[in-house]
């Protein structure tokens, strides 16, 4: 019998290996529970199919961006919707680890603290990249053309990964503070409202009054609109920079907050 010896010293190579193992555990865990990830793919795709048929004639009204079909318009929204609904999965798993005591065993073992969080959130980020790729392939098969080409598709995928890190980081903060899966999952209605009160399914330029103002100032709109420009107008460094910059900033902010919350939790132990 052989035993795997885990490097006890908190050297960088050890931390990376530990983070890799924990990320692998988190990804395998997620893959083994289709009920956890399938709705996150099914519902956005169903909504996309329904809206494409519902708004097929509405896209010709003045003020609507020039698109061949509603699918062109909604592609980035479908990707972000799928990512937003699945991004807290890793955080919910961390809360479960806290609830059943596995987290306590991890922190008493010589595992790098950073790798505990990175391991958890990396699974969601990898899955977000996969979701983005799959949705784009499916919509391209149904006639969508990404005018910005492969580079734009890559930006959409990276944005999806960064958004998963951003939302997942927020979920980690809630998981570490509450230690409750239920509280982490209660973020779903908030994300739902954020997605709907934005330019996700309709151009904000066609929204009137206070609702239009709220939608225009919603960070989800700030991410979706440049991605949409990459799909329907073509490649633009400005659009790519805006989408990546906002999601990168969100990811850095929320994951830093998660690490700070982790340190605070460990101090309390």
């Amino acid at each position, binding site marked *: 019998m052989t035993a795997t010896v885990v490097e006890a010293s908190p050297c960088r190579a050890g931390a990376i290996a530990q983070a890799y193992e924990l990320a692998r555990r988190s990804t395998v865990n997620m893959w083994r529970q289709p009920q956890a990830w399938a709705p996150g793919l099914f519902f956005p795709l*169903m*909504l996309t*199919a*329904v809206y494409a*048929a*519902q*708004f*097929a*004639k*509405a896209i010709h*009204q*003045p*003020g609507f961006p020039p698109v061949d079909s509603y699918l062109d318009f909604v592609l980035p929204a479908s990707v972000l919707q799928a990512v937003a609904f699945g991004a807290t999965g890793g955080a919910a798993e961390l809360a479960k680890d806290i609830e059943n005591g596995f987290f306590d065993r991890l922190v008493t073992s010589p595992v790098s603290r950073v790798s505990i969080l990175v391991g958890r959130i990396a699974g969601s980020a990898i899955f977000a990249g996969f979701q983005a790729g799959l949705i784009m392939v499916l919509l391209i098969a149904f006639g969508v053309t990404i005018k910005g080409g492969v580079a734009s598709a890559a930006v959409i995928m990276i944005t999806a990964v960064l958004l998963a890190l951003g939302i997942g980081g927020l979920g980690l903060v809630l998981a570490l503070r509450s230690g409750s899966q239920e509280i982490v999952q209660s973020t779903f209605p908030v994300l739902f*409202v954020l997605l*709907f*009160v934005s330019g996700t*399914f*309709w151009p904000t330029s*066609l*929204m*009137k*009054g206070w*609702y*239009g103002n709220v*939608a225009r100032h919603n960070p989800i709109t700030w991410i979706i609109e440049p991605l949409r420009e990459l799909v329907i107008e073509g490649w633009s460094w400005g659009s790519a920079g805006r989408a990546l910059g906002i999601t990168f900033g969100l990811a850095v902010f929320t994951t830093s907050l998660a690490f700070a919350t982790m340190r605070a939790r460990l101090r309390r132990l």
Partner: protein
Amino acid sequence: MTESPLTTGQRVSSIAHDFGVFRALTARGMMRMRRIPALIIPAIMMPMFFVIAFSGSFSALANVEGFPTPRVINWMVPYAILQGASFAGMGAAGGTATDIEGGFFDRLLLAPCRRPILMVGPLGYSALRSLIPTTLVLLLSLALGADLPGGALGLLCLYVAAVGVALLFGTLGLAFVYKFRSLKSLSIVQIFIFGFMFLSIGQVPLALQSGWLQHAARLNPMTNILRLSRQGFLGHVTWHGTWPGLVAIAGLVLGFGAVAYRNLRRIVP
């Protein structure tokens, strides 16, 4: 041995007894809801959000040729109300599932009352419960600028449709709960609700839809129920706009009710 036929007096007494059990079961559901308000809050908040989000996001639909009203909110209010009623209607099934899981339902089965009343009682609770989100969403919508040119008859059609939808999803929920005897089985009913609602004329009239959705919406009985509920918001109430909705409600309630009753009869305490 043959049973002696009931005398008129015994029959009246039996009906009075059945009515007493029905009233008690309905009152029990209402009492449970008063004690746990969280049971009804989502069914109120969700349609309120939908009225705001759909009317705000898709306000420009009113400019599309063929859209039947210049006020998008008039189009969206009945849709949101029926969504709230459908979730309120599941209350019957939710309460029964809790009773089955907790063992209380076995005691009800052994009680001296006829089985159909055990099914009809919770449905009475569902019907009453649906009046709460219907009224609150209606008041909010009127405050937000919706109007009801159809007057009292239009209002009556809306309430009949809302109670009908609560009953039909209540019976569907009971059919699943009697079959699987678990609260989790209600997640299947949610898929039915989304299917019925999204594949209909919920957000966009039939004339503006295209392709497969138009065919699905034409065949979907919910389309007629939505027409029934919407009449008063679009103009005057007509018999032509009323009877298909009433037939759809009666057909679905009787169909789902028959399945639910068959499953109920198979339960052995």
